[in-house]
């Protein structure tokens, strides 16, 4: 048996001139919780939509459980479970009626259906509210039923698309526990998308960082964070040249000094003319990224260096070694921008 439950090769999804997903290639191992981390609009949901058969890819291919997502879509759909970002439920129906319906469309009937519905209600701890209409539930409870609906047919692979959006801390913890239990006790493979790095760090074995439809890094969380070495310092300077970068690289405790991807100017507000955007203030400094072997020592050395030469520091940021910093390091953007 192939050790990978998902194998995506160069998946592309294009809407007119816009490429929502670009050359996406990755694999998810059986029994793994795989994270897709990226800001809103990065292409995570589009990628999931292609893998679940909701959208056909423009080009490229993928196999789920060995079945091609285009040619063997029916088989793929039986393996997959999808928990969409939206609360994809019928508010006037009870939780049980919703789950019965989603079970029936996967071919479950009679005793088997009843048992499966009871099982998933237990998993999301909503047995006592099973016969209440969804519209009477709190946001967190609705999220839990949303997850249950994706589980009722016992999928081998579960796609959880931003499952904690708008959820209170208690329900969020409950969702985390459910995900971990499903993975641990039922060996369910899970693809978990989020723009919350804490969730991904907590739940996922490996993470693909996705930005503008493209995977910019894919590894274990440990290895991704190790990319930052002893930390990263970002410093804003009014004048930067190659000589300055070379001098900074020579400082003790500094591994490398490079130009960071510069933040884009703020987009014009809707309805405003392009010329308004042109005169919008752009940062008046250039960001230099200093990868350190030891961030504290490198910081002290760097400040001394600038003081001695009367170089004013326009901005300064020390990036802690975590996924957020990794994302900033790789894309020049914050995850929640």
């Amino acid at each position: 048996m192939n050790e990978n439950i998902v194998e995506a090769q160069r998946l592309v999804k294009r809407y007119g001139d816009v490429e929502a997903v670009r050359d996406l290639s990755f694999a998810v191992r059986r029994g793994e919780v795989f994270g897709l981390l990226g800001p809103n609009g990065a292409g995570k949901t589009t990628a999931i939509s292609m893998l679940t058969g909701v959208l056909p890819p423009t080009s490229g291919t993928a196999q789920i459980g060995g079945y091609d997502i285009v040619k063997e879509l029916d088989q793929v759909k039986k393996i997959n479970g999808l928990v969409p970002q939206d609360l994809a439920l019928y508010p006037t129906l009870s939780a049980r009626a919703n789950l019965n319906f989603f079970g029936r469309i996967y071919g479950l009937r009679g005793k088997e259906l009843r048992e499966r519905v009871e099982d998933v209600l237990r998993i999301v701890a909503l047995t006592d509210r099973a016969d209440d209409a969804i519209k009477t539930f709190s946001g967190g409870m609705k999220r839990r039923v949303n997850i249950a609906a994706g589980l009722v047919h016992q999928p081998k692979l579960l796609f959880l698309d931003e499952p904690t959006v708008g959820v209170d801390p208690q329900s969020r913890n409950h969702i985390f526990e459910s995900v971990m239990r499903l993975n641990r006790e039922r060996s369910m493979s899970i693809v978990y998308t989020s723009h919350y790095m804490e969730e991904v760090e907590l739940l996922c074995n490996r993470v693909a960082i996705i930005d503008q439809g493209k995977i910019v890094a894919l590894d274990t969380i440990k290895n991704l964070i190790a990319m930052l070495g002893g930390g990263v310092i970002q410093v804003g300077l009014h004048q930067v040249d190659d000589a300055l970068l070379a001098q900074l690289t020579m400082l003790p405790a500094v591994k490398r000094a490079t130009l960071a991807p510069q933040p884009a100017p703020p987009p014009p507000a809707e309805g405003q003319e392009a010329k308004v955007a042109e005169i919008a203030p752009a940062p008046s400094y250039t960001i230099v990224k200093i990868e350190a072997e030891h961030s504290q020592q490198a910081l002290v050395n760097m400040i001394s260096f600038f003081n001695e030469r009367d170089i004013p520091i326009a901005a300064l940021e020390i990036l802690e070694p975590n996924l957020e910093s990794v994302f900033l390091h790789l894309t020049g953007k914050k995850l929640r921008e």
Partner: protein
Amino acid sequence: MNALNIALKDFQIFLKDRGAVINLFLLPMVFILVLSTAMQGLIGGDEDSLITLPVVNLDPDGEAAQVLIDALNEAGGIKVRLYDQAEAQALLEDLEIERVLTIPPNFTVDVAAGRPVTLRLVSHPDANETTTESVLRVVNGVARGMSLQIQLIASLEQMGAMLAASPPEFQVFTTEKNVAQAQSQFERSKIAPLVAVEQTQPENLSERVEEPNAVQQNVPGYTIIFVFLTAQATALSIYTEKKHGSFRRLLAAPMSKAALLAGKMIPNLITGLIQIAVIFGVSVFVLPMIGLDRLTLGDDPLALVLVSLLVALCSTSLGILIAAIARTEGQIGGLGTLALWTMGAVGGCLFPPFLLGGLLDAVGKVVPHYWAIQAYQDLIVRGRGLADVTTEMLALLAFTGVFFVVGLWRFEFD
């Protein structure tokens, strides 16, 4: 199978929505009741409950002819109005009058002489058959009674003359002979009445469309409008599924897009058929109880069912088209309502044809409502059958096909 699962789920949702039930069933009945009451007597039908019977009396000075006319007026249900022959003929051709009874020349003389005479009831081919039958029954009854009366009197007079000339010893049998003679005349009047009625239709009359009365206008009219308004329910159901993300979840399930769409269409189709059955049923059984005309269902129930099926199917396809082109809930609810009521108005569902005049012929035909109401009124007003509404049914089928194909072409599943 999944189409049925989706349809059942949508029915569950529908049954929890009391507002939808009111919109689909109670609202059209309120419109029908209010407008039929307001329009009763203004369109179609007679102003009073008596049926006006146009009569051409070709024996104007005859005593028996006058007796006949008086008897018709006194029989109940009929009011005689006299016309001259040429005028009656012209009015009949134009369907200004639906039938005319002709009393032949020398009616009085012939009756007095015991010669059989025939009254002719000529009815237009498009005359209301029920009314014609009622008139015929009354005229027959009066003619039979008159025949009996004249024949008995003549017979008794004859017996009286014979007895006066007989010797006294023969007069002891008078009573028995009188009874036997009367019995014989009575039987004869039944077999060969002196005054017979013959019903005919004039030849070479061009067919003319009979106009509906208030109930015949409003019941099919508002039924069609409200069945087509359920197209919004289909569109809104699809829109809501997309908005809530459940449509995406259904797309990820092992079912075809065709099954998914069929599942969304079935509830509309069945709801439309139930609407028609309920509204027509109430109009047949309940409207007469509150003083309105009973809705007649025509002579071809199969045709009525097939037309209803096509109306519901056409509305369902229109729902798919609306779902495909509407971008917001407001477009489905606001613009959809405006468009569907406008279609109903220009299609002749809101107003009787004489109010719309040329607009109905000029614009009406571009909307399915026109063909639907024409089909219904051909069946329930004019007593026509399946073969007579083929054009209307084909037009409804064409609209159904166009709505579905264009809807499918523009439909965005993702």
